[in-house]
């Protein structure tokens, strides 16, 4: 539902006659232009995966991380303007540490998501600030179990079973909906996330990409960490195989 908001789109403090704030919608477009990021909530944890588009052959593999740990028990995958994302991650880490200093226990994931969302929303309220050009998928595991939240540039935040943002989000969402997440373990989830990312990657339009994945689950002792090397390679191999089989059909 895109339209040109000529005249009403110059400032984030201006509403259009049909009640839209165009600057926020344009910010969401910045997210749509970035590599896909997805998250799924399995029965024993959360898996995050990112299609990290490689812009230069000289880039070191493993650099330009798109997934960050917010706290011991949670992590966030960022899509959109990288510098904006860095700011959000810094703020999230700070909120998490402050909460623990004050209340003596790890911040509940729901509370953390609320704080991220409030911060992102804050930047849509003043004319001298521009909205963040990035969306965040926040996954964590606390006393209330594994949880997955997504925060959009507008400051909206919802809790999800599966979420996708970026270029291939529509295709990714379709694939995620096919999964039986309530019965899936994170080990299986890792394989599925890799398959989906490989599937939605557009070989024609984009060049090479690097798959970045993290999880927080019972197996990782409820700590947010990169998916272990061997499992990651296994997932990549399985994903490539699945792609070839699909192409062969």
């Amino acid at each position: 539902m895109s339209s040109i908001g000529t005249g009403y789109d110059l400032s984030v403090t201006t509403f259009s006659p049909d009640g839209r704030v165009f600057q926020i919608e344009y910010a969401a477009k910045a997210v749509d232009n970035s590599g896909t990021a997805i998250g799924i909530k399995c029965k024993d944890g959360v898996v995050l995966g990112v299609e990290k588009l490689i812009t230069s052959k000289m880039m070191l593999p493993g650099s330009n991380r798109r997934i960050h740990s917010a706290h011991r028990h949670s992590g966030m995958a960022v899509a959109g303007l990288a510098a904006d994302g860095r700011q959000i991650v810094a703020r999230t880490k700070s909120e998490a540490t402050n909460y623990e200093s004050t209340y003596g226990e790890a911040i509940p994931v729901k509370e953390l998501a609320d704080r991220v969302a409030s911060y992102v929303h804050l930047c849509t309220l003043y004319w001298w600030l521009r909205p963040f050009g990035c969306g965040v998928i926040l996954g964590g595991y606390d006393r209330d179990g594994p949880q997955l939240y997504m925060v959009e540039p507008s400051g909206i935040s919802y809790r999800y079973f599966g979420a996708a943002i970026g270029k291939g989000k529509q295709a990714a969402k379709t694939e995620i909906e096919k999964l039986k997440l309530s019965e899936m373990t994170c080990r299986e989830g890792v394989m599925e996330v890799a398959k989906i990312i490989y599937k939605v990657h557009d070989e024609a339009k984009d060049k090479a990409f690097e798959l970045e994945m993290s999880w927080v689950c019972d197996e990782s002792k409820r700590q947010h960490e990169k998916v272990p090397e061997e499992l990651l390679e296994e997932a990549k191999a399985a994903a490539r195989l699945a792609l070839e089989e699909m192409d062969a059909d």
Partner: protein
Amino acid sequence: MDLNLNDEHSMGTTIIGVTYDGGVVLGADSRTSTGMYVANRASDKITQLTDNVYVCRSGSAADSQIVSDYVRYFLHQHTIQLGQPATVKVAANLVRLMAYNNKNMLQTGLIVGGWDKYEGGKIYGIPLGGTIVEQPFAIGGSGSSYLYGFFDQAWKEGMTKDEAEQLVVKAVSLAIARDGASGGVVRTVIINADGVTRNFHPGDSLQLWHEELEPQNSLLDILNTASPEPMNF
């Protein structure tokens, strides 16, 4: 011996918090003294912080009240923000932050106890300097000096609710017998998954310990009832 009635109110006190299988029992005496004078002989030293967390107060009455008030206020906001009851750990931490950050001005020892759905019954001791210590049982106040040996012998893991309450009442009663700054009645508060129960144990219902005398009834009582030995004026 001068009775300065304008002295700061202090709660000499005996306070106790004990965990049992399923919750906690908090207990305290009821004497508030101003120097040698008993300003309040029926005070309530067990104060509510939230529906599921209470605190036993000792030391300066004013200091412990103000700390409780601030923490109750912060916890209320926290509960609204979180959308569910605060945990005992969070309550205890807020108390600790107040006690530690204002240690130069405060003189109060506190025992925070309660029940939450994640950890069950928990007791946290927060003595003078603002340390926080999670313990299966905690004792505090001037009367607690006389109870260390008693608890070493009488405490055991996994008591029932009644055993725990009896232990607390017995302990406070023993401390009252020996500590001049503790006295009055024994109040207990039991907190568990089912809620909160307040109990009151009047002074004369407590058993007598070594060399304690039978309480002397008021002469007015004797006057109004038939007695074998009427008073001769």
